[in-house]
């Protein structure tokens, strides 16, 4: 062991001798980048530094690995008494010292510089500088460097690989027809984490194969197999399958019974879409053209009917929240013919009905020809809602006085009160597994709240163990006294589908609910 450590030291010293100016520059920039306040003041230079850091990092890893290339037949270290795994260890230590450590130190110093508690500064510095995203990139570049013998070969391989990936991604997205649906239902982690795990495990396997010096093309074959299998898996994943998998991962499937929803009875508010894409004046004034994408409006054509459907939450467990994911609307005639309107657009916020129940509006466009066909037949509107019931896992209440403290289950939180602008900036940092949804509100005021992200993220804790996340919420203060803030971390309890059938095209028979 001592001999190996000594050898590692010899190799590390050699690389530091060769590359110390480049390494020092990269380390300096990386550390500087952890001080956003300083970088912002640098203006254009700051922008250039932002571009230079990833480039310098990648270049440094490549030159250090290529200096003692493992795939070359010309590098002298191959016939020296140097175990390949010791060489890999030396290169890894170099990367840690020159790239990861400066990021960690910079992060810690910046944390202290902006007044965070020492514990938070340390944890966030380590987790951000040494986080899973950072590690993934570094390990992937290391594997890439271990497969190429020189910079020219690496550039060619990179360009070819990028072109292949771009084509594959385009094909896969066309096959899968992906949109933001998975983000809405919080299942986007399945794609993201699958790609991350595939990349990480492949990169580690490639490093192992290359430094075991298993002759031949084993690493290339492995990459080919992973690309094909991974690509096929990703292409086969659509939003329905993703949500199906998420449902199976529900921690408490029986909780579904505790939720009751309905569609607001009565005719759906509706307006006509004019030839220019605007909406004709009508009773349903809250339906606006901006609710629909240009593409949707063009597809629906002139005189299409825009209508709103209100989902009402009739019952939900105390303290729980409902996340509305994708909602599909399909019309079915008595003779079995189907017209699918796809996924509806949701309103930005939950509202409250006159009877005080939470409600959410969703909007669809029905082409004129489809309406005429459906209106002539006995038809049922079939709604398929993807829902997630959330429960609070941890909560903390504190004054908006800017003091940062650790709150169990939540992390380090602080909320300075900006009196001049009448707002409170809630900022919480949590290490390890993250909540499905992070919500902040003023204590005792349920109607003023903010979410740290537009969509929930139900990544299982087992896949979320390394790294940290900062949750930021801006709350608008109603008066000038420093309020108290309550932050709540919600976790998914059950994910489920609920189907609701409504007779007629627009919420009732055509005679009573006609087109506008």
């Amino acid at each position: 062991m001592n001999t190996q450590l000594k050898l590692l030291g010899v190799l590390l010293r050699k690389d530091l001798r060769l590359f110390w100016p480049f390494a020092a520059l990269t380390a300096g920039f990386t550390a500087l980048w952890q001080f956003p306040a300083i970088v912002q003041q640098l203006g254009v230079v700051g922008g250039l530094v932002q571009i230079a850091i990833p480039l310098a990092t990648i270049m440094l890893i490549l030159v250090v690995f290529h200096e003692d290339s493992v795939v070359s037949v010309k590098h002298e270290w191959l016939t020296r008494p140097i175990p390949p795994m010791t060489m890999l260890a030396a290169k890894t230590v170099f990367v840690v010292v020159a790239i990861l450590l400066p990021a960690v130190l910079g992060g810690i110093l910046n944390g202290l510089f902006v007044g965070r508690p020492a514990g938070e500064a340390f944890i966030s510095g380590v987790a951000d500088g040494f986080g899973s995203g950072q590690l993934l990139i570094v390990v992937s570049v290391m594997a890439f460097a271990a497969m190429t013998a020189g910079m020219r070969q690496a550039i060619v391989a990179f360009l070819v690989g990028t072109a292949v990936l771009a084509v594959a991604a385009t094909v896969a997205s066309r096959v899968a027809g992906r949109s933001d649906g998975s983000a809405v239902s919080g299942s986007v982690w399945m794609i993201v984490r699958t790609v991350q795990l595939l990349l990480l495990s492949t990169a580690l396997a490639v490093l192992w194969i290359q430094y075991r010096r298993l002759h031949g093309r084993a690493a290339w074959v492995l990459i080919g197999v992973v690309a094909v299998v991974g690509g096929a898996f990703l292409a086969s994943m659509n939003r329905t399958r993703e949500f199906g998998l998420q449902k199976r991962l529900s921690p408490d499937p029986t909780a579904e019974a505790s939720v009751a929803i309905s569609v607001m009875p009565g005719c759906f508010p509706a307006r006509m879409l004019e030839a220019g894409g605007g909406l004709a004046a009508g009773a349903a004034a809250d339906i606006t053209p901006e609710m629909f994408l240009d593409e949707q409006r063009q597809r629906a054509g002139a005189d299409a009917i825009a209508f709103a459907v209100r989902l009402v939450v009739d019952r939900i467990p105390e303290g729980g929240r409902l996340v509305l994911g994708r909602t599909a609307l399909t019309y079915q005639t008595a003779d079995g013919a189907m017209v699918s309107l796809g996924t509806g657009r949701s309103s930005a916020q939950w509202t409250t009905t006159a009877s005080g129940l939470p409600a959410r509006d969703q909007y669809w466009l029905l082409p004129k020809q489809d309406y005429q066909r459906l209106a002539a037949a006995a038809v049922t509107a079939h709604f398929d809602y993807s829902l997630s019931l959330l429960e609070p896992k941890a909560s903390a209440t504190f004054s908006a006085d800017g003091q940062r403290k650790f709150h169990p289950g939540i992390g380090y939180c602080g909320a300075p009160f900006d009196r001049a602008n009448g707002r409170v900036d809630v900022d919480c940092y949590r290490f390890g597994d993250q909540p499905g949804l992070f919500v902040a509100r003023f204590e005792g005021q349920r109607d003023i709240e903010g979410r740290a992200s537009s969509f929930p993220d139900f990544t299982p804790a087992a896949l979320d163990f390394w790294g940290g996340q900062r949750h930021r919420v801006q709350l608008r203060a109603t008066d000038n006294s420093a309020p108290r803030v309550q932050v709540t971390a919600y976790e998914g309890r059950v994910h489920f589908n609920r189907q609701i059938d409504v007779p007629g095209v627009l919420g009732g028979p055509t005679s009573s609910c006609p087109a506008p």
Partner: protein
Amino acid sequence: MIIQTQELTKKFWRHDAVRGLSLAVPEGATYALVGANGAGKSTLMRMLVNILAPDSGSAQVLGMDSRRLGPADFQRIGYLSENQELPDRLSVAQYFEYLRALYPNWDAGLERQLRADFELPPTRPLGKLSHGMRMKAMLAGALSFRPKLLILDEPLSGLDPLVRDEVMSGMLSQAGETTILISSHEIAEIEGATTHVAFMVRGRLLFQEPVESLGARFRDVTVTLEFPVTGQVLPSSWVNIQREGPMMRFTDTAFVDEANLRQQVEAKLGRCHFLEASAMSLRDISKAAMRATREAE
């Protein structure tokens, strides 16, 4: 044998770099591997030091399967190649400091002596050295740990005569203690320094044997016959045959003595008036052997 290969074969796509090659290098030999550029010498040497894996056949190096050679074995094997990649930004002194730390059996005295003999400038980066200086630095690095086996791939290529002599004398200072396998596309470079020689042509081994016996069995023969003779079946050991009237010239690859040769000539071609069998240099032997192979193919 320090090195022994059996039917060693290596292909690069469709190109046969080394074809069914069986080689035996005895301990203590200075073994020259001669062949034109592209003959497969470098590929063979890379297989011997486990940089490349053979497609078939096997190679034993220091009694071990070459595919199993590991870091510990390179304490006893030195390898040097003309186009080897070095840590070019290290100075000569830093390079030797680095190498010294890798070998427990490093001979610092020998290093000092070789660096002095080769006049290596300690502060100059390796990348700024001339080709000759670079080769000398590599050779000093390969000799200073007193390897049991030294494999040198075209170490003299592109060197001026003076530097070539320095490198050769540095190398020969270890001969005997170290078995040396040295490749060259130009036999004249190493003639006089080798104990054994092997010729490679297009991935194949033409022959291998001690220099002494090789010199003894190759003769450049000139004969003048009584009458011009054509169409006779001649011994296969006569190669590169040229005729001009009653005069004939060829290389005898199985020469024993002149009386025996005269007997053979007269038995096949009739009475001969004149016969001369001149000893050949290694260079001429290699040229004759290569020409004969080309004609045979």
